[in-house]
Each structure stands twice: as structure tokens, then as C-alpha cells.
């Protein structure tokens, strides 16, 4: 019982949207009374901390302390203005030439994990995520705004579009046929 609020805090930390007490009770395998107790205890422990519980009717979620809002605005603003660097340019170029493309494909082509850079590009409205009709993993494509900004009306207007696309598709074919082999040094 002693660490129920610890687990509750961890659950609320990863759950980025409001969650009902009932659902919490289900996941934590305790009754709603237990959840209420844990919430009360967590609320107490969070007092004076940078993170706090926000309640809305039956649902709860974690949010930040109001006194931090100025700093948070600054950090969010920076996300919109910072130089995206080589990684940004590289990733955007792959999304443009191989659109629509999955994260796994982008990672394989770049040879590094693109999780954070994809996020940054999405936050800035340069690329967007669309559902994949053939699978679970989402597809990434350039936004209209990006194409317009670059002065092209479609990806096929990009220089060497066909040739570049072919090389990228070919690479996919080779890695797929050798998958499993690629890990064995």
C-alpha cells in the first residue's frame, strides 16, 4: 500500500491525457476508494513541486505548476525557432523524396534513430503524420506549407526526383532481403 501513490504518479506521468479514476483503479488493480486515497496522498506529496494533479470531474492528469509557466513558454517557443541543423535537413529530405514514409524506413536510411527530430519537424508544421492504411506504424509526409515554402507544387517537382526515389527504394529492397543479417557483424 505504501507505494501506491508512487505507481499512480508514474502512471499519470506517462498518460498524457486525462484518465478516469475508474480506469486507474482497473490498471492498478485496486478499488476506487484506494485510488482516492492514493490521489490524496500524492497531492500532498506534490505540494510545492513543479508538477501537480489537475482534476476535472472524475478524471485526473498531471500538469505543471503555474509559477513555471513563463519558463515553459520560453522552452516551447525555442522549439519553433531553433536551427534544425543537418539532422533536420537530412530527415526532411527523406520525407520529401520518399513520402509517404514510415519512421522505421527513415531510421534505416539515416542509420540513426529519428524520434526527436521527427517530433521537432512536426511541431513546426513541416511534416505531418498520417495513418498507414497497410499497417500500424504511421506514415510521414511533407505539409503543403513546406512545399509552398520551397516553391514546388508537389514532391515530383524536386530535382532528380525519380532517380533519388529509385535509389531509396532499392536500398529498402536490399536491407529487407538481408534483414536479420544486418545485425550480425
Amino acid at each position: 500500500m505504501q507505494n501506491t501513490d508512487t505507481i499512480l504518479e508514474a502512471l499519470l506521468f506517462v498518460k498524457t491525457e486525462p484518465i478516469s479514476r475508474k480506469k486507474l483503479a482497473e490498471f492498478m488493480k485496486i478499488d476506487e476508494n484506494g485510488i482516492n486515497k492514493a490521489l490524496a496522498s500524492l497531492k500532498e506529496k506534490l505540494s510545492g513541486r513543479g508538477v501537480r494533479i489537475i482534476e476535472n470531474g472524475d478524471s485526473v492528469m498531471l500538469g505543471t505548476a503555474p509559477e513555471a509557466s513563463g519558463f515553459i513558454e520560453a522552452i516551447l517557443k525555442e522549439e519553433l525557432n531553433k536551427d534544425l541543423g543537418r539532422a533536420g535537413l537530412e530527415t526532411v529530405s527523406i520525407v520529401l523524396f520518399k513520402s509517404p514514409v514510415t519512421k522505421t524506413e527513415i531510421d534505416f536510411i539515416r542509420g540513426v534513430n529519428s524520434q526527436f527530430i521527427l517530433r521537432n519537424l512536426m511541431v513546426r508544421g513541416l511534416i505531418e503524420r498520417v495513418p498507414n492504411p497497410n499497417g500500424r506504424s504511421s506514415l510521414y509526409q511533407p505539409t503543403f506549407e513546406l512545399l509552398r515554402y520551397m516553391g514546388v507544387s508537389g514532391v515530383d517537382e524536386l530535382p532528380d526526383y525519380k532517380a533519388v526515389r529509385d535509389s531509396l527504394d532499392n536500398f529498402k529492397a536490399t536491407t529487407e532481403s538481408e534483414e536479420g543479417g544486418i545485425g550480425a557483424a
Partner: protein
Amino acid sequence: MESTYIAKIGSFEGPMELLLSLIEKRKLFINEISLSEVTDDYLSHVRRLNDFPIARIANFIIVAATLILIKSRSLLPEINLTEEETESIGDLEKRLSLYKIVRDAGVRLKELLAGPTIWERPYARNKIPIFSPDESFTVENVHSAIQSVIANLPKKEILPKVTVKKVVSIEEMINSITERIAKEIKTSFSKLSGHTGEASTHENKVNIIVGFLAMLELVKQGIILVSQEKHFEDIGIETNRLSLGADNLQQAANN
């Protein structure tokens, strides 16, 4: 029987793993003596690697060369090794010790990986994105970025030229060590003739050495396989202090 044996060798990722397993099977410590004791086992494993990708065989042969030196020195302590050869013996002991440390640590890491995970907070900003371009995102820059992406795509596993050079040079080394051993045997024969009572042990030793020389021939077959590797393309950027005669380079390039 044969096929299960091969499968067993195939499960060794690299030469260090094989070598360490041979030493541990005999419950030995890592030192020159234990390395010399497992040399025969190691070489007979390498002999059976012929069906594996050349790059893998090459890695095993490079280590085999050093083991051959170690074994030669244990059979004939009088044999003269060059400074570089002596150094490579010290290196191998060191590498194997390092390998053992990281492999043992890896076992504990595996346990950690099987245990609980620390989770990160997923990214979730449900705000509508504000279009904020980076001014470097021009058609021209995007085009040159994708060209470099394509240029950096990994090629199929091709044996680095430096490795081929190194393996080919091992053939030279084996020839030279064979010569040196033959010479040593001759001298020690003449030294020993006249000493009665030691003849049988001496004969025994000569037999061991002859068997060892035969083993060297087998390693050379592996070297031939490597030197026949056709796809010559440098994918490694490592420098290599190996010096090679122009003949060998030429020969390697022609194969």
C-alpha cells in the same frame, strides 16, 4: 554429427568469442601458455569455416596468425620472432582479457534488460502546429542533403581492403615461420644427435612440430579464400600500419 559440429562453430560471432570459450572449456587463465594449448583446437575450428562469409573467415584468420606465433614459440623457444610478432602476442592476450571483461559485464546487462524499464513521458502536445520553417530548407539544400544521404547508405558487407591486405600478408608470415621452424629443427637435430636417451622425446617433439606445420597448410587454404575476394572496395576508414610488398597488393588486386 558433422552438421551439428559446424552449427556450433557458426554460433561464434568472432575469434575472441571462440578463443575464450576454448580456454574456459579447459578452465585455464588467459596467458601465453594457455593460448598455445588451445591453438590446435582453434585452427581446426577455423579449418571448418570455409562455408562462411569471407569477412568472417578473415577475422578468424587474423587471430590464427598470432596463435601460430605463440605455438611456434612454445614448441621452439629458440625461434626468433620479430619485434612486431612479439608485440602481436602481447596484444592478443590483452585483447582477450578485455573481451572477457566486457563479455562478463554483458551477462549482467542482459539481466538488467530483462528487468524493469524506466519509461519516458510520451511526447504529446495536442496544439495545432505553427508553421515555422527553417530557412535552410530550400530545394537546393534538400537536394544536396538527399545526395549525401544516398552516398552514406551502407553497402553490402564488403571486406575492407585493409583486412584483405592483412590476411594476404599472413600467408607470407606463415611461409616465413615455416622456414624458421624447419631451420630450427635442423639445428636442434644436430645439437641433439649424440645425446642418448633423449631421442624418443625428441622424436616426439619433431612429430608434434610436423603436425603443426601441416596445420599451417590448412590455414593457408583459408587465406586463399580471402585473397580471392572479388569485391574490392574500401569501406573502412581505419588506418593500418601493416606494410605490404607491392607484389602482394598486385596479386590481391588481380584476384
